[in-house]
């Protein structure tokens, strides 16, 4: 951890910027966030809109209840032929999943060690991963994820299929509202994420293709 911090460049740059700004000061600029504040949807419309926007980019939706979601997920994965499901055993959702899982089919794989200890299996031997979410955003059809020590970042990225649990009572209007109302600026996590569909690209002649580097499929489990 000992690269030169290049304080020479730092001081040169900052003093030059300061001198330029002071020579030609810009009058204080105010920002009016009304346009974002006023973007509101009726609570009943939010889920509809989220589904419509996310389905337009190939997201799949399945519905469940707080009681039966582990079984719904297990049925779904069995039908899709998934052999392995990576999960976060130390989260409440992870505990509920393990408790509701029968016959270990598909195989539940806990993400309970540092990634270095099972990178190969993560990249080559996992079909699906399941995470919780902090809700979703109606404006753009986006899931909000704050990965944690218990629910690591790569759970939603490396497996070919990502299943995300979305509680139907955690739907917000815009990113701006979520971050201001929940006070994100007071303590950002290591990584905060919005996910709005499976991985995609249009880099070959603007033809949309799904599953380029991240998950090929995103399945949202709506818990009502």
């Amino acid at each position, binding site marked *: 951890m*000992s*690269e*030169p*911090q*290049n304080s020479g*460049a730092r001081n040169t*740059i*900052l003093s030059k*910027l300061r001198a*330029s*700004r002071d*020579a030609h000061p*810009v009058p*204080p*600029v*105010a*920002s*009016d*966030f009304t*346009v*974002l504040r006023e973007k509101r949807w009726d609570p009943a419309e939010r889920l509809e809109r989220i589904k419509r926007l996310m389905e337009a*980019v190939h997201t799949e939706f399945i519905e469940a209840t707080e009681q039966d979601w582990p079984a719904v997920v297990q049925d779904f994965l069995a039908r899709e032929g998934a052999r392995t499901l990576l999960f976060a055993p130390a989260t409440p959702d992870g505990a509920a999943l393990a408790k509701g899982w029968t016959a270990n089919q598909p195989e539940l794989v806990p*993400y309970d060690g*540092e990634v270095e200890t099972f*990178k*190969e299996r*993560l*990249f080559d031997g996992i079909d699906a991963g399941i995470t919780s979410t902090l809700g979703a955003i109606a*404006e753009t059809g986006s899931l909000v994820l704050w990965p944690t*020590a218990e629910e690591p*970042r790569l759970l939603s*990225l*490396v497996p070919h299929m990502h299943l995300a649990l979305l509680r139907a009572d955690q739907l917000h209007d*815009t*990113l*701006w509202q979520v*971050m*201001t109302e929940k006070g994100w*600026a007071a303590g*950002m996590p*290591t*990584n*905060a*994420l*919005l996910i*709005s569909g*499976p*991985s*995609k*690209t249009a*880099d*070959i*002649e*603007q*033809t949309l*293709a799904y599953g*380029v*580097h*991240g*998950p090929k499929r995103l399945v949202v489990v709506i818990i009502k």
Partner: protein
Amino acid sequence: MVESSVNFAKASSAALKDPQLRANFRRAMDGLMSKRAVQFADTAEWNGVRTLAASVRMRALSKLPELLEQLEANCTKNGIQVHWASTTDEANAIVLSIMQRVNAKLVVKGKSMVTEEMHLNAFLEQHGIESLESDLGEYIVQLDEAMPSHIIMPAIHMNTKQIAHLFKQKIKEAEYTEDVAQLTDLARRVLRRKFATADVGMSGVNAAVAQTGTLCLIENEGNGRMCTTVPPVHIAVMGLEKVVEKLEDVPPIISLLPRSATGQPITTYVNMITSPRKPGEKDGPREIHLVILDNGRSNVYADAELRDTLRCIRCGACMNHCPVYTKVGGHAYEAPYPGPIGKILVPQMEGLAKRGEMPHACTMCNACVEICPVKIPIVEIMGRLRAEAVHPGNAVKDAGARGSKAEAMVWKGWSTTYASPTAYRFATALLAKLGNAAPSSLPLLKEWTNVRSKPRFAARTLHDLAREKGIPDV
């Protein structure tokens, strides 16, 4: 000095004669423009968010030195190591020293225009480090040993067939296919192995939040998340203008950037990174480095008018709407940033001796200004740079480098003629008589006619005709 300048006229003539290239760009730009228009159908919403986003960028620039210091302090507090580079050479040296310390052999890169400024790939390869682009478009361009032709869609100049041939030729396990899903899947398989084994991941930064020390990255493919999460070391590079004051300043930018760029409501991933792996966390890099690069930006900042160039959020919409870019494509500019924003940014970074031609590759039609999500007065700055190129001064590097005595004489003669009725009448009468006989290869005249048809002069001047109709001279 002017000899070493980049010859846009020559490169663009070649591009204009390539029907495949023109068809590829025409088709792509038409698609991008219509998709964007759908996203901004609600004019009131567009005006509101656009005014807000422009204010966010202007506010950031109004406090730029303070915000950079605040960003540095908060990043450092969060465990992100901050480095400063005045030049691309310094930035390359910083990146290399980090890589050498961790004994890196392979670096995977997310899309970053700043690393294009740095020519980082070539630099690292010289030092024995494999530097692999992982954004699909950048990967294609790197396989082709070419430069990106668009800042958002780097391989937009190629069609599927050309990419299919390239993959067959350059990737060992490739079967020839023109199926885009299969080509994409092939790249997925090749690059996943690289993500899993890379020593370092690199990325750019779409916005850096001073208030929280957060780096925001948006992308569709997931390669950006791979590069910033899987390898043990993450190095982010940013131009010093990318800072914003508060976390709440990010949503307006995220609202406009993907809609302007590709006409999608949001990118698949919005990735906000605030610290390296904390004790107890199971993945994420153990080190994050942020390299803040100047490379001429502080010069741009020094001029009250040119400063607006630094508002840019790199959406590329100005390229998509530019009649010149659409016809000649990105490579003709031979610059990291093509199109309208390139025409005002690159000359300021690299100087007017080398890049004095770029601001002239513009019809001043104003299409870019109308769609710019942060209201950069691109055309006004273009005009200013044309003037700077011929008048010695201090505002822009190599100001005056393109000044020519002959051109100055022509304009002087023009203004004298227009200021004197006698001279004007004499000159127009002369052109009416002899203009059509003058060969277009005459010195001075050929500067105009080598890219334009010579005008046909009417046999009688307008004044003549008016006088005949009894309209008196003023």
